């Protein structure tokens, strides 16, 4: 997965983030991203990534280094790394999913999508709306009608909490839904 067609293993690429920071990465590691692999095969060594911020790119490079074939990590170590990697707010994770998808890193995209899915699958309708900033275009009557179609699906304990930003994530878990919308907490753009 990490070898490109004719480049020597020690080939170094320069990745440039949206913030104009440059990062040197071995080609053998970076080509886990099919997008980068294609560019390398076309002969490029300078890879501009205008839609990925430095913060996101740094972490993704960490992931690629850890998951490279020659990293020598056991499956347990990789799982542990992945679990730590995804400890962030859903809002931030959506930035990473976008980047992972753009870079075509299937393993990372799957990991992030699964983590998001696991986090929100037991959330109430209201919580999911607020997390994804979706405007409700039902009238109350229409919404009640749709709800009645599958009343049983709304039974049971549903998580009504909306996450705060990563730094304060642990403290704020379980707060009531009277909170302000997450918009106010987010520092990321």
């Amino acid at each position, binding site marked *: 997965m990490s070898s490109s067609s004719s480049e020597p293993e020690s080939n170094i690429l320069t990745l440039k983030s949206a913030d104009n920071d440059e990062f040197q990465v071995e080609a053998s590691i970076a080509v886990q991203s099919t997008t980068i692999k294609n560019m390398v095969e076309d002969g490029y060594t300078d890879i501009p990534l205008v839609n990925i911020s430095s913060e996101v790119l740094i972490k993704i490079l960490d992931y690629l280094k850890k998951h490279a074939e020659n990293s020598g990590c056991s499956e347990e170590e990789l799982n542990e790394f992945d679990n730590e990697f995804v400890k962030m707010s859903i*809002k931030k994770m959506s930035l990473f*999913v976008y980047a992972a*998808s753009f870079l075509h890193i299937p393993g990372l995209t799957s990991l992030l999508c699964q983590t998001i899915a696991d986090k929100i*699958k037991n959330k109430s*309708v209201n919580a999911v709306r607020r997390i994804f*900033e979706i405007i409700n*275009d039902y009238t109350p009557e229409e919404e009640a009608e749709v709800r009645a179609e*599958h009343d049983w699906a*709304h039974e049971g304990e549903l998580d009504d909490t909306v996450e705060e930003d990563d730094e304060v994530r642990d403290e704020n878990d379980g707060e009531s839904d009277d909170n302000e919308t997450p918009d106010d907490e987010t520092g990321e753009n």
Partner: protein
Amino acid sequence: MVNGIIKKLGEDLVNNVLVRFPVKSIIRLKCISKRWYTLIQSTTFIHLHLNYQTTIQHEFILFKHSIKEPNEFISILSFLSGDDDDGFNPLFPDINVTSMSSNFNATFYPLLGPCHGLIVLTDLTTIIIFNPATRNFRLIPPSPFGCPQGFHRSVEGIGFGFDSISKYYKIVRICEVFWNPWDDYPGPKETKIDVYDFSIDCWREVEHVNLPLIYWVPCAEMLYNEVVHWFATIDMSMIILCFDMCTEIFRNINIPDVCNNLTHKQYYGLVILRGCLTLISYPNPISPTDPINDKVHVWVMEVYGVSKSWILQSTIRVVPVESPLDVWKNSILLFQSKNGHLISYDINSNEEKEHILHGSPGSLSVIVYQEGLTSIPPGSQNSSKAHNF
């Protein structure tokens, strides 16, 4: 309508997240907004979700069993999660089948399916199609085809599947019509095939050439590769009769030579094991149990349709078997024992286990399925609409 994160991620990534949800969670999200309602109901999304559930092999188990009450049998459906190594956990309370249709009285007729997460419950005349994940069901109108006075029309075999060319579900019944006087032997049988076509919401008869006679066993009517399979006999040989859901043409498949003689010593069942059509041959349950000599043979058809590709996968000792039921986690055979208990046999570890799940002997039926959002195909105005249970 949608803004912020969702807009940035785009539909593909949103789908990538949503397909990982269990059906119950997705259904809730229909209330989020009209756009999400449309997305979740769309055929594209339903297929994506079903495909994903198939790749991760997240299994559920539908367990039908009957209980003998003083005057009658009542049939109960239990909905279980199939993930646990230790057993099966109920997802929600059992339902009494009579709550779906008061006409239903087949204790011993097995469930049909699954097909895209849809399952059919039938006693050969009453037919109910339902989706255990969305809890919708619909009664299928009865077949209008009768027979002349003095004749009798009996249903010998029934099957359910999907025609991927015209993209509709179908139910097929193999019937025998014969002169049935009260004072004499029945006359020769004429085979009639009727198909309930969901696209036109009514029954139609299908032409056929000479068909072998159906040989009914509890574990047949297997849907595989869009073809329904039953056991049938030609002279004294057992074969597998197939009905292609798309072409509506019948053909035969031979079973291994060593077991195709109709001796009534062995009974047969069809299951799908590791993606292959699999024949299970087991001692006739009516015979007395012989713990030393009773053996169950598992034959796998490695190349579908090629009779020479049957191989004997295993010979196992599981006693006493009433019938096979289904396959769980790709390697665990489920049987019902003669005393009405669910038995699992792991063909990798040879571990046999009797479970708490039980019912009246012979009344058990199991379907192992993946959840799907598939809607129950609607009927026309006159026939009944989908209900919830």
